[in-house]
């Protein structure tokens, strides 16, 4: 089944795990700023999973912004 994006309408907003110079940020689409910044990527992924609601997509990015992993909670 095709995933729905927040911008195409219908689906819940995705949560991104994004590289920052200071670590790894959890950023919900549409939010004005990152929810939290972690030093370690693993911790950021765990944090994203905890804050995601059921059915929400978590997009884990590589350091260059490309996609490493995409999962649905």
């Amino acid at each position, binding site marked *: 089944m*095709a*995933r729905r*994006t927040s*911008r195409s309408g219908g689906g819940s907003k*995705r949560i*991104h795990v*994004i*590289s*920052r*110079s200071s670590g790894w*940020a959890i*950023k919900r*689409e549409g939010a004005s700023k*990152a929810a939290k910044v972690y030093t370690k990527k693993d911790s950021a992924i765990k944090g994203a999973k905890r804050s995601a609601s059921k059915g929400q997509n978590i*997009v884990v*990015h590589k*350091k*260059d*912004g*490309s*996609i490493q992993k*995409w999962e649905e909670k």
Partner: protein
Amino acid sequence: MSNIPKSFHNNVFINCPFDKKYMSLLNPLLFTILYLGFKPRIASESFDSGEARINKILKLISSSKYSIHDLSRIKSLKKNEIYRLNMPFELGVDIGCRLFKKGAHKKKKCLILEAKQYRYQKALSDMSNSDIKKHDNAAEKVVRQVRNWFVEIGLRRVENPTKIWERYNEFTADFYEKRKAEGYRKRDLQTMPTPELVNFMREWVKKNK
């Protein structure tokens, strides 16, 4: 009356390596330029085996007010690897264009990027007193440095670098999702021609900015 086309003031010539590793920096670079409202101009935007490459480069340089030169491949990384001279050469042509042409070309602006801060001074000592920006081969820093440079040369009302970097990450997610749904495979995405990728970026920015 000037015969400079209107597009000159919006064009940004990109002089960079085209190796696979550099794509992780080139893509955010292209995105940032589009996000800021400019048009990236790059040798890989068109392909005509009948056209001499230098002629294409000269046209791109002459038709762009702005240029970004990445010299991060001035040093070979392994034994017997030949370092690239194209980037310093094209930087020289661009500076020559500004110095020797008249009119709008005198107002050309350029940004020199490097992975490290002082290495270029040894390789290109004629430019040793020029300001450059370093990106440490990090995509997020490319976005930050390019955005900040445009502000430094006069662009106003620009979103902050972190925001643009986050928007680039959102773009990659949308891009991946939509192309997969359209039947693109991993290799199709990795080998996508520059004009096709730029077109997707332009559409995304138009719709989402």
